[in-house]
């Protein structure tokens, strides 16, 4: 299997959790075990869109219990004899191997996954991905020239991994408390993204675009926009070191004067 694999460096490893929720896209070659009409293959692929039931395979690191996953889209691309090429967008943790097996079952002829390439992992696409040998080359160039522009050829800021997570932007005065694990309250909020949903993972950000923490929204968009007090986000994973922003424990204290 090949394709997009985001590798988090050093402190950035804390954002890995956000990537698991951001969805994936693959291009897959499925091999049918007998000939089947193209029209049927197209139809069955469409049937697997939306919720599917899967149990992780024997060789997996997760508990082998039946679970649901969402297939956002499964688009037939082309067919050559018994080889079917299709593109699939899905939730993280969806087993494409199992999808191919199940498609084969529904078709009646049986099928297996022949080849898989990941074309997207969250916000990261094939376009812009870097190969291992390019990585080694550019790293050596960077060590030699110490030019940070070279560094940017193969490394992105960890905040880019949060591009698909709904963002909550907060005041400077609210930052340090969140770094200590404090829950975010309504007065600290400056803006939110409309894709925010109560109960979902959100990224708490500063006005400078730095990631402060990952949390879970405990209010919906309307509530957050209109509430004067109360908790709006439960902090779950602090990303910014304490003390980056000044401590402001007293409420109402402005620090930009």
């Amino acid at each position, binding site marked *: *299997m*090949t*394709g*997009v*694999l*985001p*590798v*988090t*460096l050093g*402190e*950035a*490893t804390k*954002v*890995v959790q956000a*990537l*698991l*929720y*951001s969805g994936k896209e693959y291009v897959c070659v499925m091999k049918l075990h007998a000939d089947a009409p193209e029209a049927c293959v197209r139809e069955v692929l469409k049937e697997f869109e*939306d919720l599917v039931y899967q149990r992780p395979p024997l060789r997996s*690191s997760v508990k082998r219990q039946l679970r649901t996953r969402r297939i*956002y*889209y499964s688009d037939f691309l082309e067919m050559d004899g018994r080889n079917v090429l299709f593109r699939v*967008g899905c939730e993280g943790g969806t087993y494409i191997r199992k999808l191919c097996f199940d498609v084969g079952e529904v078709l009646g002829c049986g099928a297996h996954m022949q080849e898989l390439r*990941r074309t997207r*992992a*969250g*916000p*990261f*696409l094939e376009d*812009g*991905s*870097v*190969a*291992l040998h390019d*990585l080694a080359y550019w790293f050596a160039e960077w060590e030699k020239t*110490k030019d*940070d522009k070279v*560094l940017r050829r193969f*490394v*992105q*800021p*960890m*905040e880019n991994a949060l591009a698909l997570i709904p963002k909550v932007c907060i*005041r*400077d005065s609210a930052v340090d408390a969140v770094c200590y694990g404090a829950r975010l309250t309504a007065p600290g*909020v*400056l*803006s*939110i*993204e*409309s*894709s925010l949903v109560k109960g979902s993972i959100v990224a708490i950000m500063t006005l*400078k675009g*730095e990631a402060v923490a990952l949390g879970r929204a405990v209010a919906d*968009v309307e509530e*957050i*926009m209109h509430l004067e007090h109360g908790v709006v986000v439960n902090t779950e994973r602090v990303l910014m070191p304490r003390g*980056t922003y000044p401590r402001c424990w007293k409420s109402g204290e402005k*620090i*930009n004067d």
Partner: protein
Amino acid sequence: MPRTVAPWEAKRELLVKAEDKTSPKYGRNPEDRQAEDYMLHGVVNLDKPAGPTSHEVAAWVKRILKLQAVGHGGTLEA
């Protein structure tokens, strides 16, 4: 029939509740991090080759970049 929207297809609008300024005295824009600081808060969008597991490839990245710790976002294995 509308199907479920993928996270990258969702419409995202910015809803502003209040305005405030940010002081240049602390914190910095992620793009302005320097050298080791930028690297240690960075992500590599790697094109994984066939053969090794995702864990092995991440370990290679760690060795190439001379780092203490790396992680990866989603296992890609056979």
